[in-house]
């Protein structure tokens, strides 16, 4: 800035005459010249050590701001602590007001938090475990609340919010169709291609049809769809409910005697439970189609052969294993999203954190649940 370069720097002429130090200050004692201001104040403090009394003449100070006043008063205070008297003379009235207002006081420095790497590490683990435990218990509790609300709604169908359900179905299922169909098609192609390359070495190319049929119907379709829905709809539900929570809309519902779980969460979770199996079915069709196309191109398996081989390799239970899992996935995604949404606090930052957390927890739980189902179906040989 032009003013700063032209401005006169702070100066302190220290004159040591007969037992008292007289310091004549001049220039601008302002924040732009902070290092100089501090250096001069330091020099002043050191010069004062030689005598008992210091007189600081401020009449030449052109400009004084809070920083200058603070440093000057701090120096006076420090000298006073050591038993030296320091007096300010000749200060202009406006500078005096500032010096009085800014009067030095010690700020208790906040004690830096005690850090020990190892104990902190252990404490973090402990906290994470107890938080996971609380989350789990909270999830079970919320499932109970949701079930109660569902029973209340179903026992009095007049209170059922059909329009909200349809609207949510559109958001969750209908609008999700294109992206889910597309990625399923691509994954179907990729799995088929890799299968063909590996099975060719054994001369068993046609078994690729068994591979993709079983893999897609039992696992891939429902997993892909659930992960996509957790990312798409889980985050949307958390964001919607979270922003309503932030603006006290949830509280507004409560004071009107409406149950937010009944009004907001039941339609959303029901839409997920109905929508996810539908999407899973479409995903399976699309992935099988992708696999079929790839098998035709890469493995010379004609559509006729593909279809008859598919019929021979899969049964109704292969199809059902995938589909049965879908509503449970939906329930887990919905419950997690709703809990995270209701846990949003005042700030937009907390909303962002909760949305991320809903997606991460949702996808994690979907995969865990899929593992549990795999063990279960293996145990009952289905």
């Amino acid at each position: 800035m032009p003013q700063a370069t032209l401005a006169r720097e702070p100066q302190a002429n220290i004159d040591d005459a007969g037992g008292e130090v007289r310091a004549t200050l001049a220039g601008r004692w302002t924040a732009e010249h902070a290092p100089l201001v501090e250096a001069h104040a330091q020099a002043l403090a050191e010069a004062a050590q030689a005598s008992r009394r210091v007189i600081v003449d401020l009449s030449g100070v052109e400009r004084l701001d809070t920083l200058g006043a603070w440093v000057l008063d701090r120096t006076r205070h420090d000298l006073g602590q050591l038993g030296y008297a320091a007096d300010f003379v000749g200060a202009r009235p406006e500078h005096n007001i500032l010096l009085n207002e800014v009067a030095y006081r010690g700020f208790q420095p906040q004690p830096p938090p005690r850090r020990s790497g190892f104990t902190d590490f252990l404490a973090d683990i402990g906290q994470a475990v107890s938080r996971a435990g609380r989350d789990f218990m909270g999830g079970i509790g919320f499932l109970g609340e949701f079930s109660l609300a569902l029973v209340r709604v179903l026992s009095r169908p007049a209170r059922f919010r059909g329009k909200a359900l349809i609207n949510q179905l559109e958001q969750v299922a209908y609008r999700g169709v294109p992206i889910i169909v597309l990625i399923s098609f691509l994954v179907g192609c990729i799995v088929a291609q890799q299968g063909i390359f590996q099975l060719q070495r054994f001369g068993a190319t046609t078994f690729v049809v068994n591979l993709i049929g079983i893999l897609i119907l039992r696992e891939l379709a429902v997993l892909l769809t659930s992960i996509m829905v957790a990312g798409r709809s889980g985050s949307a539900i958390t964001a919607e409910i979270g922003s309503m929570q932030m603006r006290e809309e949830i509280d507004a519902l409560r004071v009107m005697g409406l149950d937010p779980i009944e009004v907001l969460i039941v339609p959303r979770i029901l839409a997920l439970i109905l929508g996810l199996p539908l999407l899973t079915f479409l995903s399976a069709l699309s992935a099988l189609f992708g696999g079929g196309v790839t098998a035709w191109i890469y493995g010379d398996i004609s559509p006729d052969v593909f279809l008859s081989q598919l019929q021979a390799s899969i049964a109704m239970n292969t199809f059902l294993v995938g589909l049965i899992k879908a509503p449970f996935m939906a329930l887990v995604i919905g419950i997690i999203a709703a809990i995270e949404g209701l846990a949003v606090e005042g700030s937009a930052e907390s909303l962002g954190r909760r949305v991320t957390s809903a997606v991460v927890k949702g996808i994690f739980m979907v995969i865990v649940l899929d593992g549990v189902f795999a063990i279960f179906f293996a145990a009952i040989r289905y």
Partner: protein
Amino acid sequence: MLDRVSPLRDDPHREAVIRVRGVEVAFGERKVLDGLDLDVYRGEILGFVGPSGGGKSVLTRTILGLVRKQAGSIEVFGEDLDELSPASRRAVERRWGVLFQMGALFSALTVKQNVQVPMREYLNLSGRLLDELAMLKIEMVGLKPDAADKLPSELSGGMIKRASLARSLALDPEILFLDEPTSGLDPIGAGEFDDLIATLQRTLGLTVFMVTHDLDSLHTVCDRIAALGQGKVIAAGAIDEMLASEHPWVKSYFHGKRARAVMAAGA
């Protein structure tokens, strides 16, 4: 009554730190400011009033360079803002502080870190001085030291305003812009905030430009008031001159039921 403005406009004895001439701002077809003239003199507290949605905040934002104007000129410290190089414009910006209506504290930083943002950016301070100065500003605005390490989400509305004021004072500005500083505060908190602004104005020699709706603030702390209407300043002057104004909007504003109560209490 437009004549009332002109003697104030050309007051030769006082230095105008902000000089707005013929500013026009339009959003699409709608003209919000239409040839607005306004002077803010050094060392005064100017209260800026006007109907809701009338362009008070738009003028503030235009002076601050957040809204583009279609015509007119704005001089701050005698320098035309349009003709400044980016560097000298930044130098001017360093000499003003802004208190936004919602506080606009950075939500990821504590109060102290918020106050230190402009200091770190513009000043070369030692670590000790940086801490002490931030704490000093926090105390000057009447916050307790333990508020310094809190995040904005942990503060009440009044504390957010104070913390934001501390940040706007971080660089010892010469001009302070306040956008509805007392809105959302209870009358006691608003009164305290008014006193705080008056005290700081005296101590730091500030020039204050205050957009407000608060009749109490206008009455107690403002040296001069400017009223906005139809995109122009329709009246400006001390509170007595405003009370004497014949302009219908000014009249209903300062002689309404609420205004009479304030004046009666103040008298």
